[in-house]
């Protein structure tokens, strides 16, 4: 049970914080259509987090009320979260936001593929629902990048490649498996290790951006997601500012 809980929280916390980072862009994306698209994608990621937190609560037969979900989403101590530095990182640079969106959704689709035939059937159901949305997320990011990367050497290209250089090292945290993942694999919950996505991810990045990252770039970490990055505490403080006014209140 602990292995499964860890596995679900790893995905749920990534989805939660990625959605949080996306919605920070509402109202300030480069143009109105992009504003609307990015808001939708952010809502989708938050929705995936809700579905995964519901599965976590189900392991303990807890009804997935708003209060129960929010206790998981906001009220654990830092060492109880399983998020990656990749999603904890905050940015006000649109190039980084867009490149992260592309990488995250590329990896996310691969992650969902690992559990579409899961022995934990409730997770397989969530995966099939989420995958339908991911197709649109990928299409959105690709359409923008097709155009922005069209002219090699352009200012847009330079900005995006600089953003990529900043983000690829953090890929190691996104691909870092949780503790006891081997049990998850042996029980058929997932078909392969999260770390096995490293080569496909690097290959996809190189094909998309015309780069030459190698197998030594973004190597999956081995700390089992036990620690949080420096960005985590300020992010959580910001997210909980209202909740902290009165922890017992219903808002």
């Amino acid at each position, binding site marked *: 049970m602990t292995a499964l809980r860890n596995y679900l929280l790893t995905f749920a916390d990534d989805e*939660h914080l990625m959605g*949080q980072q996306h*919605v*920070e862009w*509402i*109202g*300030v*994306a*480069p*143009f*109105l*259509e*992009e*504003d*609307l698209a990015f*808001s*939708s994608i*952010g*809502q989708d990621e*938050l*929705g995936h*987090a*809700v579905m995964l*937190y519901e599965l976590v609560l189900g392991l303990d037969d807890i009804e997935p009320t*708003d209060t129960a*979900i*929010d206790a998981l*989403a*906001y009220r654990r101590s830092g060492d109880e979260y399983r998020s990656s530095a990749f999603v904890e990182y905050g940015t006000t640079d*649109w190039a980084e936001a867009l490149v992260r969106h592309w990488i995250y959704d590329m990896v996310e689709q691969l992650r969902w593929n690992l559990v579409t035939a899961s022995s934990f059937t409730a997770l397989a159901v969530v995966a099939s629902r989420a995958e339908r949305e991911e197709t649109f997320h990928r299409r959105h990011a690709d359409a*923008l990048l097709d*155009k*922005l990367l*069209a*002219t090699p050497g*352009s*200012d*847009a290209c330079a*900005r995006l490649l600089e953003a990529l250089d900043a983000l690829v090292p953090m890929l190691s945290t996104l691909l870092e498996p949780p503790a006891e993942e081997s049990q998850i694999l042996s029980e058929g919950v997932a078909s392969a290790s999260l770390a096995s996505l490293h080569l496909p991810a690097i290959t996809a990045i190189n094909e998309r951006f015309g780069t030459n990252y190698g197998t030594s770039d973004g190597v999956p970490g081995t700390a089992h997601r036990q620690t949080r990055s420096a960005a985590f505490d300020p992010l959580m403080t*910001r*997210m*909980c*500012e*209202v*909740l902290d*006014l*009165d922890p*017992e*209140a*219903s*808002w």
Partner: protein
Amino acid sequence: MEEFEAFLNDGGIVEAPDDMPDEYRDAVFTFIEMHANSELMGGLTERDWIPKTPGLRHKMSVVAKTQDEIGHGHLLYMVAADMGVKTRTEMLEDLFDGKSRFHNVFHYQAKTWGDQVAIAFLVDAAALASQQAVFKNCSYGPYRRILKRIISEEGFHMRLGEDRMMRIANGSQVQRDLFQDAINRWFWPSLQLFGPDSKPNDKLLRWHIKSERNEVLRDAWVQKFVPLLQSYGFTIPAPDMKFDETTNRWDVGPIDWEPLKATLAQGGPDSARRISEALSNWQQTAWVREALDAPAPEIAAMT
């Protein structure tokens, strides 16, 4: 103009390609541009608190609500641009340069989560009442059709605001104090949103853009929200307010219109920050728009 006004009085509907007097075109365009600007600036006011929304499902609802507001701006800019006065980019750049107007309420800062709820509850209700009055008898067809959708979504927003307000009203003293402070800050700006009494010769009324006088809409809002807020135990920050037992109506007393005038001159409490931040965001992402507008390399090579 007399012939045009007779057409309007007979229930005539004007479409974008139709001939119309310049004065009518300019008045309608300015009205829609201000509405579009207000939807966008309203979204910016709300965005300050979205990341701090207390609850995950709650946050999804709030993001969807603000996304709707930005979406309304998107639709309204299209309607306005079709009038041929300014392009969407020109309208946005005028807004971020402080050259065009947006509603008074978005010249104020949402300082607390209580303010966020007050905006959804009090401001959205005031805006909805104004929009419904325009939709009722609007002579400019494209605007009227877009308003139908906007109004239906605004109804959901108001219910979201009402639901959040009721949770707070039935909640802890911390929550109630937070919302009382928000009422103290937002009651008057919300009421001032309707504007001073309509002039006898108001062109927007004469040309069937508005269907109701400002003071009538304002009074209807007062008669609804004063007793509603009081029924939840909140007080109204209007020391001269009286209840007239013969008419069974609330009178909030004299209205100070100076704060409204200040916002019209971009001199509201948060005007400078709001406009400069919007301009800064616009400038920082200019490279994206420029790259997307650039011709494809193969086309550029041919020119």
